[in-house]
């Protein structure tokens, strides 16, 4: 997730606003757990299918290191498709999925060298040629902060989890398969693409703060903290942060401000950071919106919200952006250059915008490029370079296309509470029952059933891709990633509409900001099964994408 409104520790969020990206504090975005978890789960299913497929045919997979460990038992994933049996298409899908296993392991990991060398842990040192290391050869698993954190970023305890631990090294990672781990890492890392968005504040003759003071004085009790609050909270309204107002006061008393308020003050040069990255992670799929530059617009606040009814949070963000004159710096930002798409994939292309068009209006009036274009950026690079890093963009986009609020272009309507709730219940979603001493693997039978459901979903998405390939001669190794992301989003949005639009709530985002984050998030506690439905279908799309992407090289 849920990239758009990732919950962040406020210090991280604010640090990321400061001194641009280079001095950002680590962003422990909880929703990274979900972004990382979906590809991890998809890969582990691929791996299990591959092993079962080989076992069923008595054919070993590659060298012995790719064989399942002793004691491994099939999960029974080679079941028949729900279309009936025998089904040649399903059987082919199983074979293709099995083949993807080794191909994915053969991708370049694309990882930069560790930030700290050697790691504190004496058992690991830097291999040469690390960026070009095959994923399957990586000696260690990594955590989500591998690039942005300040430590080694390795995770010696990583395991695939649940039923998939049966194929993992007992007791944790020593030399296991980190492919899913790395794919998940790259998917989550897109929320660290700080250079996607650089913002400048338009020069106002009088200065916007001065203009606004008449409206504000009634609310001010602490002169020192007051100027910081709107700006700090503003970041939170956009995409994250904890306990906004309290931290604003803390900052006012901070001894060392550098990692807290750098660059926060509008009018002060370049504003960048993780909190603004996810403005590119939306795709408004509703009818009736303007779609001025793409077939489906990205974030465009004047038309934000379910049925274009803005949440109070959307309105306040729009007013804040407009009042401050916060404007995308086209030449400094990667986003406009990455996510305007003109290609021959059969999907509508972007209407190109130059520097002035991007900058004429503040972000309150700037339609941003949509999520499917973000996916295409990475995919287009991956076609040229079999490097797992590039898969991060499409994998991330498929994750966000499974998050309903990204599909109505809103920062409100329960966006953050919903995604916090998905994180809160992630282990329950993933392992069906929370892992505990009594359930060290979760609910085994339920997880197997979940894997089967994901495979059924993946089969449908695989057919979607194959149909497109059939219709586009010469693109037999390509993936219609923009179509895939868009269709996944459409189906997710339709599914929640059929269920009464349960994720969309016009009051809980305000509640989240003004009173209790926990209470607001708890609004979604009864909906874990529905959350799981969305995650599973998204994971199915990711699995189908990975199988198809593995064929590109």
């Amino acid at each position, binding site marked *: 997730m849920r990239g758009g409104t990732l919950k962040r520790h406020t210090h991280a969020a604010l640090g990321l606003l*400061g001194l641009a990206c*280079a*001095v950002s504090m680590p962003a422990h975005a909880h929703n990274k757990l979900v972004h990382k978890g979906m590809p991890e789960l998809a890969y582990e299913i691929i791996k299990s299918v591959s092993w079962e497929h080989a076992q069923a045919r008595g054919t070993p997979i590659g060298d012995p290191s790719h064989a399942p460990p002793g004691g491994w038992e099939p999960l029974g994933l080679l079941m028949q498709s729900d279309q009936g049996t025998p089904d040649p298409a399903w059987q082919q899908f199983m074979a293709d999925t099995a083949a993807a296993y080794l191909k994915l392991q053969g991708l370049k990991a694309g990882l*930069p*060298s*560790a930030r700290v060398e050697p790691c504190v842990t004496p058992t690991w040192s830097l291999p040469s040629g690390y*960026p070009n290391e095959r994923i399957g050869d990586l000696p260690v698993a990594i955590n989500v902060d591998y690039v942005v954190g*300040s430590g080694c970023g390795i995770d010696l305890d990583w395991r695939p989890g649940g039923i998939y631990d049966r194929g993992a090294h007992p007791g944790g990672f020593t030399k296991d398969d980190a492919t899913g781990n790395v794919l998940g890492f790259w998917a989550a890392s897109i929320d660290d693409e700080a*250079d996607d968005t*650089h913002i*400048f504040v338009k*020069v106002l*003759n*009088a*200065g*916007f*703060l001065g*203009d*606004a*003071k*008449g*409206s504000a*004085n009634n609310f*001010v009790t602490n*002169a*020192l903290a*007051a*100027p910081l*609050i709107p700006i700090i909270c503003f970041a939170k309204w956009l995409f994250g942060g904890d306990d906004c107002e309290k931290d604003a006061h803390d900052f006012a008393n901070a001894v060392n*401000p*550098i*990692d807290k308020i*750098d660059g926060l003050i509008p*009018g*002060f*040069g*370049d504003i960048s950071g993780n909190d603004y990255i996810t403005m590119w992670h939306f795709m408004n799929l509703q009818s009736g919106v303007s779609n001025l530059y793409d077939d489906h617009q990205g974030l465009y606040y004047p038309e934000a919200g379910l049925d*274009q009814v*803005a949440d*109070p*949070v959307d309105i*306040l963000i*729009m007013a*804040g952006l*407009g009042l401050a004159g916060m404007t995308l*710096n086209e*030449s*400094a930002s990667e986003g406009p250059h990455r996510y305007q798409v003109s290609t021959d994939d059969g999907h509508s292309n972007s209407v190109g915008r*130059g*520097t*002035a068009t991007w*900058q*004429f*209006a*503040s972000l309150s*009036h700037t339609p941003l490029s949509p999520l499917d274009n973000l996916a295409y950026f990475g995919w287009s*690079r991956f076609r040229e370079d079999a490097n797992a*890093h590039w898969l991060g963009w499409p994998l991330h986009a498929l994750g966000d296309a499974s998050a309903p609020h990204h599909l109505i272009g809103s920062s409100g309507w329960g966006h953050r509470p919903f995604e916090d709730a998905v994180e809160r219940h992630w282990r329950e979603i993933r392992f069906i029952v929370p892992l505990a001493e009594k359930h060290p693997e979760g609910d085994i039978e339920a997880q197997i059933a979940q894997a089967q459901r994901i495979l059924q979903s993946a089969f449908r998405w695989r057919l979607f891709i194959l149909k497109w390939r059939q219709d586009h001669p010469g693109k037999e190794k390509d993936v219609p990633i923009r179509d895939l992301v868009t269709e996944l989003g459409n189906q997710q949005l339709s599914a929640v509409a059929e269920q009464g639009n349960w994720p969309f709530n016009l*009051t809980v985002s*305000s509640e989240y900001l003004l009173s209790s984050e926990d209470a607001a998030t708890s609004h979604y506690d009864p909906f874990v099964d529905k959350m799981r439905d969305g995650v599973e279908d998204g994971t199915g799309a990711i699995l189908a994408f990975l199988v198809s992407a593995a064929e590109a090289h």
Partner: protein
Amino acid sequence: MRARLGGAVVAVLAALAGCRHRPEGGPGEKPPPSSRYAEGADPACVADARAKVPKDAPDAERRFQELYSRCLGPDIDSAVAVVTGRIEVDTQRLSRQLLEDKLTPAQFVAGMRDRGRKLVRAERENEYAHAVAEADADNDLIPDGQDRCPNTPELAATDANGCPLNKLPEAPSRESVQRLIQGSRFLVSPACQGSGRPQTPAPVSLGFDRSVFRSPLGLCFPSRELCNDGVDNDCNDQVDEGCPTRPVVEIVVVPVQNQPAGCLVMYQLELLLMDTGKCAPEERPCATTNRPTYRTLVFRSFEAQPGPTPGTIRFVISSDSAFNHFHRVLRGFNRLRWRARAINGSGHISDWSEPHFDVTLNLH
């Protein structure tokens, strides 16, 4: 005695270079994006626009924004600039009036959508932009020649004929939006009311203060989490015993003095980081250099300490995390130029100081 700047910077940063750090390169490591202007617009053009519009002139903001829009990109049609500039002014006014509870959310949303539509129309229909620029008496962005309602109220959304919309969009209640606005305490520092524009702060020095050393200078200045871990974190060929100390970063400026008592003044330092490469002079320009990059630091007046000389103040960066971040910023660059300006709690901004120090770093 504090050793400042110049030599201190060189020595400390050279020492820092002794530590190994994550090398750049690969798809996960990209250079910073190029930026035509750090603040989105041609500064010379903006200065020219400022000069052409006296602040106390009637309709100064509108006139300024019309000129300012021409600074936002190359080859901008003057009429398009006029329309987009007006829309920016309207956007600010709509936003302000919403925050002041002078507009309902529905009126605000209608106005924002209306200006958004007209913005795109101006970009795409040159004839429309010129017609609006030439004659639009009621400022509704419908040319007078097409305007069937010539007295549209300010900021009202209109139809294509310039008549106010009969129906506003569905929107949240006024109470819900005002509750959020008030709950989030939008702006600002009352003590600065009536203040004028701050003076420009003058840079004096930017460097390292080593007077706080309690043990011989290490090389890495690791975070304290790494103390006593049996590893030589500070690269002095000895396993650490306790936490090594390190200097603080010290920034000295001549402060702003023309602001009311209690008025918050924030000092912005803009650092231009440059990399002239580490190759021999005869090999320059070097094959691999980082592009010049701007970074910003902000300090607030109440964080200032007395400066080393009369009439100066001093800001320091002393916490581990802040220092490490600062170090990370500088890594990969070997020259630094900086300047300063001030903003007060009412949003008045001083001019930039002249670019000051041109410090030679040694972080390669």
